[in-house]
């Protein structure tokens, strides 16, 4: 019965997405509670799978019991269960937030469409991480790109439409160049299954290297476009500036990370470390990541719309993960996955707290944050913790990932990256501290200095507080998460 669980996960998400439109007549609370129970069930299954896989070992789920050369299969191993666990935890908390804040520009009757799209988005993320077939991954990436664009354009504002359109165009170029990479690999190996392609690439590397070089180039550009890695990040800030806060939280904390994990899966499972180092791709990736870290932070400083600034800071933090991947070492990969977790948590808290500020104060300009600390102590407290994490102050998970990244780059013999880490820490401080200073030290227009409770529904505050507790919790006791990550990274021969 255990090995049916992955399909149960996928089917539960899909069936809820199909069932929601039938409940139009029921009041909205019913659909929300139904959605929440389904998300909870899938979360419990994912946690159980994570436990089962780490104790019993990875297993395949073959459709129709066919040999992988013929049919499709899902690979359930420590890496995919860890990432799906991360996805579901984040989306569960963001879902709790979005139940009350969905009024952020979405019409009352649009709710059920928003949740249909969110469930299909979850279904496609699970599919991308589970599947072990290159073309199947492409189909799920397409579903993901349509759903992410539509949760941006669901808000009836003209900025949303143009931001969503630009996102669709760039995303589409990304997936088509990924597909071109798949076609080139198929041309030389005759398979689309990831492991079989990986094995036959070793022999084909001697006879037809140009095919593989072109395929690597197109795939890196394709997934780079979708994961908003620095030179291809143009769509991210606009998409974040206009999207509702819960969708921009999902977009930057979860969706971008899924593409980065696809990036890791393809680089280290399809191509393998020896082809990569023969073309010295890892050093190129590290350079791209480093440039992204610096340029992302520079752009973030120049913004005065908070959401756009958070978007640019996401681009910078993605640069960290890309540096981790580029190190192509055991420690480098585990730092990259750790930073997926820590950046996911911090970015969700930042976006949700900004959403709460918008919900209560209807403003999002940075210079309008004066004295908000008094009006909304809990939200701004969480924002403060997350901002400290982003800068990398000790006792937060951000510090752990920065420290390990420095260690990994030192070990990997590319120590100049430590200076980049320090420089980016300073740059982060430059654009996060003014907000905190304005919020807590300056007095607000209403001249109210006594701490008043946030006038924001409890359901919105709960996830913000829970995640900020986790930020500090993982910052202090990281080894629980580290062992899980060790299991996950051991599945790649790096």
């Amino acid at each position: 019965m255990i090995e049916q669980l992955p399909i149960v996960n996928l089917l539960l998400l899909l069936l809820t997405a199909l069932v929601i439109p039938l409940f139009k007549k029921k009041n909205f609370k019913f659909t929300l509670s139904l959605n929440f129970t389904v998300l909870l069930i899938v979360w419990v299954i994912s946690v159980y799978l994570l436990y089962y896989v780490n104790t019993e070992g990875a297993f395949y789920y073959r459709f129709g019991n066919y040999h992988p050369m013929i049919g499709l299969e899902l690979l359930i191993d420590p890496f995919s269960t860890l990432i799906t666990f991360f996805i579901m935890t984040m989306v569960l908390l963001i879902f709790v937030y979005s139940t009350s804040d969905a009024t952020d520009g979405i019409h009352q009757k649009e709710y059920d469409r928003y949740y249909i799209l969110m469930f299909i988005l979850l279904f496609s993320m699970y599919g991308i991480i589970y599947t072990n077939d290159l073309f199947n991954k492409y189909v799920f990436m397409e579903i993901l790109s349509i759903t992410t664009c539509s949760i941006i354009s669901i808000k009836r504002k003209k900025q949303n439409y143009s931001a969503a359109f630009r996102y669709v165009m760039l995303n589409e170029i990304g997936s088509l160049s990924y597909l071109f990479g798949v076609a080139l690999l198929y041309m030389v190996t005759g398979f689309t299954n990831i492991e079989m392609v990986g094995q036959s690439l070793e022999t084909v590397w001697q006879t037809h290297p140009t095919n593989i070089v072109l395929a690597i180039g197109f795939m890196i550009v394709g997934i780079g476009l979708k994961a908003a890695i620095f030179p291809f990040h143009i769509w991210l800030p606009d998409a974040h500036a206009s999207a509702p806060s819960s969708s921009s939280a999902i977009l930057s904390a979860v969706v971008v990370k899924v593409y980065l994990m696809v990036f890791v899966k393809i680089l280290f499972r399809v191509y393998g470390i020896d082809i990569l180092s023969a073309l010295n791709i890892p050093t190129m990736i590290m350079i791209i990541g480093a440039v992204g870290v610096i340029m992302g932070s520079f752009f973030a400083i120049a913004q005065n719309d908070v959401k756009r600034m958070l978007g640019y800071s996401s681009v910078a933090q993605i640069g960290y993960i890309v540096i981790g991947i580029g190190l192509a070492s055991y420690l480098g990969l585990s730092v990259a996955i750790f930073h997926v977790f820590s950046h996911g948590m911090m970015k969700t808290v930042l976006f949700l707290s900004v959403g709460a500020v918008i919900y209560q104060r209807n403003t999002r300009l940075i210079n309008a944050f004066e004295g908000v600390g008094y009006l909304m102590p809990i939200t701004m407290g969480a924002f403060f913790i997350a901002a400290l994490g982003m800068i990398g102050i000790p006792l937060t998970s951000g510090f752990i990932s920065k420290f390990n990244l420095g260690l990994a780059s030192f070990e990997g013999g590319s120590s100049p990256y430590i200076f980049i880490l320090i420089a980016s820490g300073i740059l982060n401080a430059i654009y996060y501290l003014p907000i905190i200073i304005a919020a807590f030290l300056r007095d607000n227009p209403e001249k109210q200095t006594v701490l008043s409770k946030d006038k924001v529904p409890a359901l919105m505050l709960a996830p913000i507080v829970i995640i900020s507790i986790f930020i500090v919790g993982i910052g202090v006791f990281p080894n629980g998460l580290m062992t899980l990550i060790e299991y996950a990274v051991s599945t790649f021969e790096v």
Partner: protein
Amino acid sequence: MKNKIIASIFILLFVVLVYSIMQMPAGSGTDSLAYSESTEYYLENAASETGVTNIVAAILTDYRAFDTLGETIVLFTSIVAVVSVLRPDRKPKEGENNG
């Protein structure tokens, strides 16, 4: 002037691509690399295993049925996406709740 540079970049890209294609295996026969043993398996026992003469339909709905399931979901999402963009339940007045 600007689009002259862009045009030359694309011509350069095209030349590079054609150059690398010339080194690729051109075999369009049964000995080409893409004609792997999975293709031979399909052609030989798709009919017996799925009881269907159109092998493309056999692969589409039996061997790789999960792909086609993903396909129908793409269609379903495109409907929901277009409805969410074009089908306002009431005309979107400008200056709806902002932020």
